[in-house]
């Protein structure tokens, strides 16, 4: 073939303009390094500002582009990516997530003798990779974006390199992350091998492309190699989203990581895993021979995650560990939503809505944690450090109350709507056992979320004033927290804006 023609054809299929948000975020990340070199004196103030303003501009432009031009659908990059309403909403999700993590990082890193610029750079690169991941349609794309995310997290978790607990968390995450990557890769290889076997009818050399793989699985969904590969891929992702029995790393890593990174890990990394779950379980492995395995298996994992996360969180005194363990139960809810989505089409949007509601509510809580914690490792992380928080800072107390209430699923807040949607989806899919366990676990979770709230609002300690000084939050730093808390309340009453974005 003529070489020039070959490259012309390939170039024509690479529609770079479709991924302008990811390219902009990547360029923004690079520009931070340039700023550090050009104005080293100003970098600590300038860099977070540039990162946050840049991300806000990209987010607003993305939403405006939907209004102006609509959402594009279909394959691009010769099948590497697949544009859809789901991918677009996850793009918005990760942009908002990255934006708030930059703010949290700004708060957490302030006043510490630690490099700043690299934090924002890595957060931006990871954000761009997450956005691509949600639109992937090809195992090469999935793997390379997931690895970019994971490697970014290895660095971020051990970011406080002068604190042994942070390094220990980084090492644990590195080893278990490596294991999960191994499982995922092995599964991909088995699927590719099964799909490429020329002895089978309908074999394809494009086994890495999800659509081609699905076409193969329609005929050979019960093939041993394919089933083994599918299971390994799902287990590899289960590590990332931390559902039972792959949750073992959560408490230590969440505790050791800097608070901003804990929030990033708990919200965006989890959401990435669930975006993959949705792409794979409901779009690729949704052939009858495979759903007969995935539905019972994932249901069981969801049930155990719901129970394990809530029961272990009951006695937890460290707030970061508590958020991690309760995050496992939220992962159980999300997994239940994914299972429902196998049979009920709109349940995908219930999962996405739950992800958004989980993001806003947990960011409210993590935002408060970033202000309460001290500069030394472990300082201000225990539940007892929240004694009388409402008296010490009415603003932080209110935000914490809203966030925790929403996580627990109390009616006027957005968390309630998210849980209600998942329950309706489960009911329609006929998964009554999951529904029952979900309702039970909501009841358990209210217990520990309200315990935290009681400490913060009514405070048990005798000399509250003496032991726990008031916390001053300057006005500019109140704004993002107030916005997050406002959205959490607002979406609880009126879901139209988010529903319009999601196309519900």
């Amino acid at each position, binding site marked *: 073939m003529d070489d020039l023609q*070959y*490259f012309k*054809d*390939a*170039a024509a*299929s*690479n529609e770079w303009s479709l*991924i302008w948000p990811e390219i902009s975020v*990547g360029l923004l*990340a690079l520009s931070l390094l340039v700023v550090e070199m050009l104005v080293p*004196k100003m970098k*600590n*103030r300038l860099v977070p500002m540039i990162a946050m303003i840049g991300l806000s501009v990209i987010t607003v432009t993305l939403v405006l582009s939907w209004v102006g031009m609509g959402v594009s659908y279909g394959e691009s*990059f*010769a099948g*590497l*990516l697949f544009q859809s309403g789901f991918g677009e909403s996850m793009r918005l999700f990760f942009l908002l997530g990255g934006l708030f993590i930059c703010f949290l990082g700004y708060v957490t890193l*302030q*006043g510490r*003798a*630690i*490099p*700043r610029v*690299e934090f924002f*750079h*890595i957060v931006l*690169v*990871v954000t*761009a*990779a997450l956005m*691509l991941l949600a639109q992937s349609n090809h195992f*090469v*794309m999935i793997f*390379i*974006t997931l*690895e*970019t995310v994971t*490697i*970014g997290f*290895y*660095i971020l978790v*051990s*970011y406080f*390199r002068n604190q042994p607990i942070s390094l220990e968390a*980084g090492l644990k995450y590195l080893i278990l992350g490596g294991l999960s990557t191994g499982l995922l890769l092995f599964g991909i290889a088995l699927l590719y091998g099964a799909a*490429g*076997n*020329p*002895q*089978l009818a309908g074999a394809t*050399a494009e086994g890495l492309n999800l659509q081609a793989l699905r076409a193969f699985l329609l005929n050979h969904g019960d093939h*041993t*190699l394919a089933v*083994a590969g599918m299971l390994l891929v799902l287990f590899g992702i289960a590590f990332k989203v931390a559902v039972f029995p792959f949750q073992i790393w959560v408490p230590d890593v969440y505790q050791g990581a800097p608070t901003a990174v804990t929030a990033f890990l708990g919200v965006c990394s989890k959401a990435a895993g669930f975006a993959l779950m949705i792409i794979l379980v409901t779009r690729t492995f949704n052939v009858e021979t495979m759903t007969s395995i995935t539905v019972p298996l994932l249901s069981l994992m969801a049930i155990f995650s719901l129970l394990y996360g809530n029961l272990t969180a009951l006695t937890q005194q460290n707030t970061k560990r508590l958020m991690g363990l309760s995050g496992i139960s939220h992962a159980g809810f999300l997994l239940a939503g994914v299972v429902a989505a196998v049979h009920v089409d709109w349940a995908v949007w219930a999962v996405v809505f739950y992800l958004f509601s989980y993001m806003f509510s947990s960011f409210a809580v993590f935002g408060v944690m970033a202000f309460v914690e001290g500069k030394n490792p472990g300082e201000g992380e225990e539940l007892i450090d929240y004694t009388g928080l409402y008296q010490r800072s009415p603003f932080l107390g209110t935000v914490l109350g809203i966030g925790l209430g929403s996580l627990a699923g109390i009616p006027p807040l957005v968390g309630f709507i998210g849980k209600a949607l998942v329950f309706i989806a489960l009911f329609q899919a006929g998964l009554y056992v999951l529904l029952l366990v979900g309702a039970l676990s909501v009841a358990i979770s209210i217990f520990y979320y309200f315990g935290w709230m009681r400490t913060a609002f009514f405070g048990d300690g005798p000399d509250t004033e003496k032991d726990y000084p008031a916390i001053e939050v300057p006005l500019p730093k109140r704004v993002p927290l107030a916005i997050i808390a406002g959205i959490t309340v607002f979406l609880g009453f009126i879901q139209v804006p988010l529903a319009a974005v999601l196309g519900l």
Partner: protein
Amino acid sequence: MLDFLFYFLAALTLGSAFMVVASRNAVNAAMFLIVTVAGVAGLFVLLGAYFLAVLQILVYAGAVVVLFLFVIMLLDDGGEAKVKPTAVSIGASLAAFMLLLLGVLSFLGGPELVDTGAAQATETPIGANLQEYGRQLFSVYLLPVQVAGFLLLIAMIGVILISKRHQEEALEE
């Protein structure tokens, strides 16, 4: 001849892989790992994937294992450590072995493995020859290559960040 080569290389790979686990000296284990990697490279050559074979030697035998050796020699843990197998490790190994056995058994006699000679892939797989590999890498797979560039960038920054003993940064707010 090809059959003999395959069995020879497979035995070499498996034998040396076993020795990696079994040898008590860390340096010896790393050396056996090189043999394992070379054996796998030989198997790639038999499959016609010459480029993969070269990469296997260059990257794994040439760089990764040498790095292992550096670390082992720098650490110098002083002689042979005796690690007794625990109940958990024995159980885990047995479980892994049973799974492997199950996998092998489930394919023995399967219809797709009866006639290996006739199977010929119609399309050239990626990585079979260097030219096709490069062509695909810089046309169809250009986007993943770009992402990989960012991956390497943050990996590099991360290594510097975590390993460098940075001065106390001036605190300006």
